[in-house]
């Protein structure tokens, strides 16, 4: 049972993972290295250790992932562009305060070009629609300060059409509420000043009931297992709608700390599983939201 955040161990874990490019885990996730880089670097930044990496190396690698003609970024050099990796790329550049090297017009046009008639967003030219992409587009364009390149009103209308009778949001109209999708929809509505579309009490109750009695961890939807990444999705959603006081913070802190690997560093989805960068990031990010004094 852990009682504090082993920041140094996690930093070492991230830096080592960054170097281990040829392990099977790394190769099989080659295509989403841009996401992995964002998770790892943001965690380092939260722990005040962003200086441990070579900014120039990272930034120049990020730029090799941008598609010359399309303008969007891929998950790794050579792969196809997609909004998911475009957001991570922009976020990484923002972390290093290097947004100025971007051709903002090019990137924003890539994203704006993916908005559909009904206000939804496709992930790429192949047309998969999901409210995750609505959030990604809105978040990315807001960082680049050009939200006016899309039809915000229609984007909001589409997100609202994905609102369910339990107050939550799904990936497409009629899809089941899921904490990850809720974070995306509530986040997009927050950025665009449209939180009045959310029934805060109804959604707040649904979200606060994600807490598991025994472990104190949060799950993503009813009758599922708790998972550290929901510490972020559920918690930040609750904060945005001012209902975070409906959940017990102390228990979540304890759950996240228990998910640390005290030997190798890193955080996993639950205390028994193997760690990874994804859950390390969400665990640390969740703790920062909880104003935890444990770091």
């Amino acid at each position, binding site marked *: 049972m852990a009682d504090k955040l082993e920041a140094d161990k996690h930093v070492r874990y991230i830096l080592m993972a960054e170097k281990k490019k*040829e392990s099977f885990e790394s190769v099989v996730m080659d295509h989403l290295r841009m996401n992995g880089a964002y998770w790892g670097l943001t965690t380092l930044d939260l722990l005040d250790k962003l200086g441990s990496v070579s900014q120039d190396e990272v930034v120049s690698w990020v730029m090799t992932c941008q598609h010359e003609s399309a303008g969007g970024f891929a998950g790794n050099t050579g792969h196809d562009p997609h909004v998911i990796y475009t957001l991570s790329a922009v976020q990484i550049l923002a972390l290093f305060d290097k947004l100025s090297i971007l051709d903002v017009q090019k990137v924003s046009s890539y994203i704006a070009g993916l908005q559909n008639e009904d206000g939804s967003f496709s992930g790429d030219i192949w047309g*998969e629609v999901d409210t995750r992409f609505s959030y990604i587009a809105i978040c990315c364009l807001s960082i680049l300060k050009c939200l006016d390149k899309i039809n915000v009103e229609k984007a909001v209308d589409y997100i609202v059409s994905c609102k369910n009778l339990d107050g939550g949001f799904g990936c497409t109209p009629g899809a089941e509420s899921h904490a990850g999708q809720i974070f995306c929809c509530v986040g997009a509505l927050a950025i665009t000043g449209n939180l009045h579309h959310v029934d805060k009490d109804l959604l707040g109750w649904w979200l606060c009931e994600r807490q598991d009695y025994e472990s104190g961890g949060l799950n993503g939807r009813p009758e599922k297992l708790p998972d550290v990444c929901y510490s972020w999705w559920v918690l930040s959603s609750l904060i945005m709608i001012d209902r975070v*006081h409906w959940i017990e913070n102390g228990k979540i802190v304890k759950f996240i700390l228990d998910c640390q690997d005290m030997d190798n560093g890193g955080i996993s989805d639950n205390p028994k599983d*193997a760690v990874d960068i994804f*859950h390390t990031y969400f665990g640390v990010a969740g703790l920062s*939201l909880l104003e935890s004094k444990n770091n």
Partner: protein
Amino acid sequence: MHGRPRKASKPEEEAASAAKAVKLRSLQSQFMTNHHDKIYTNEAIELSTKLLEINPEAYTAWNYRKLAVEDCLSRIESDPNLVNSILDEELRVVESALRQNFKSYGAWHHRKWVLSKGHSSIGDELKLLDKFQRLDSRNFHAWNYRRFVVELTNRSEQDELHYTDDMINNNFSNYSAWHNRSVLLSSLLAQNADGFMPNERIPDEYDLVHSAIFTDPDDQSGWFYHLWLLDQTLNVETPLLTSSWPSHGSTVSLSGAGCLNGSSSKFTTFCSESGSFPLILYFDQAVGGVSSSTVTTDSELKGNGDLVWEPISYKNSQVSCVWVTHLKYVSSDPCEYKVKIRVGNSPGIVSSRGHNFSAPYEFVFTAHVHDTVKDSQEGIVSWTDGFDIWDAKSKDLNSLITLDQLEAEIDFKWRQEAIDSEVECFGILSDSKIGKLTLARLLMAREAMVSDDAVKGVRYEEILQLYNDLMALDSSHYQYYKDEHSVAFLHKVTSSSESLSRHLFRYRGMNNLVCLRLNNLSLSRIASVEKLLFVQMLDLSHNELHSTEGLEAMQLLSCLNLSHNRIRSFSALDSLRHVKQLKVLDVSHNHIGKHSVDTTRYLCSSPLSNSEWSPDDVGRQNPGLVTKYWDAYFVLRDLNLKQLDIAGNEISGNEFSSFVLQIVPKLVWLDGQKLGN
């Protein structure tokens, strides 16, 4: 990593893993070459099949396959057999990828893409879905794909509803099935489809969901469905006017800035420097379309042409429960004027759900304009001295808190019966958390339906006790039950003129203005504001409030005490920006500045740093301070405060105080000290 246990790997395992990595790396680089060189030979396509079998998440490979398919299709002579065999092969690859990872976004989307080509047989898709449902009945990818297939094949909603019947009867603990059911049923009910009349259908659904809740009270699968049924039972679609100020049959005494001389003022006295008084409409749900054509005003008060109605809402929203306009009066023209308001005079008032305000509703009040007295009172307002017990005829109060709500709904009977039956059922489940919570909600619902004053108030004690029980039984959600408790408590306080009168006092310092004192009541949340529109002086000190959400409707509020609460930032006070009459505000001894996380910053109307805002002089001269105290800046600059208390907060200090003096130039009293000269 989901499903991968945490354990140190043995050297044999590491060696095997390294070999796999080398193989995959080689496969990936060969694939990339094919993709970049646009090579779509059978051999190249087969390579991508191998890659996707090992790694279904390699999204670029799915893109490549789509390009390969399009390339192939463009070269054959649209021979249906050839087309089908190409597309069938794609479906086979998807199925094999899904066996590796049945949650792969790329695989599911590829399948949808193939089916959209229009050639493949769809009959097998439902069979495939059944297979996946058996593997994992909560797989939302499968449920989404099911919706996609249903739309493509035009399967009826009734058939799909039967499918959810099967799923639920097989295993009630299937939230995904209940969710789907709610979507289908709400659509059928909205259409008034055959056999889907709410008064028959909803009671049946209650019976169905009981099986889920009563079998295992800790299983959440049925909870949210039950709550939805409750909402369907209670909520009348047609928007109604809940309350107004001035209220029907009341007399409002109006005067100029000086206020009345000595005479004990009644409830409905209003003094204004601007020579106008607000007219407030409070609806039971958010509506749009309130204007001078949909709400007509008939009076002899001079100077009131076409009135401008405004919704009290967030910046972007054109709908609200609360609408306000202002009627002008001339205090040098003392007289009694009758004012007749007709709400819904012409169609146009529509709820945010799309339902029209029904029959026009008329109310009448009298505006009694008085002469102004030159002697104005500019002393400091004290919250502790100068209060007398209020002592007036209760019928004055009655007219203010009795809600003259029309019962436009004919089908009231089935709703009441449904609630009564549920109350009986859940009385049996009274030991469990969901039992107590549902019972509390049902009793609250019943209170809202009962109009007989004598019967009201009796069951509030039971509701409050249930929430107290829940705070102990489910301590993780203590604050949720606390908030509900506060709401029920305020409903109780405002349920009768007798209970409300115990909280009313007269403040001598402002010509016996009526003050509502709700201090020291452990209130964590504000409620029942629709019954408190008359309030001009409100003491909410020594409570547990962290936000002023709800107070925006109190358009007459001029003095507000929020000291000794749990306010964490000025953004939590954003709703006060709508309260233009506010002159006296006490937020001393709160938690402003204590927390790094601001839970109300996205709810307030203030723009985020990436939006446009035009700084005023203060903003231009002090950009650093505006950034540091941005929420205080946006909230305070919109208020016309004369008296402000901010001591006892983490943010308090010389820097903040001097910043405040710049933003609020008309301030006379700060933290009890007179300013100026």
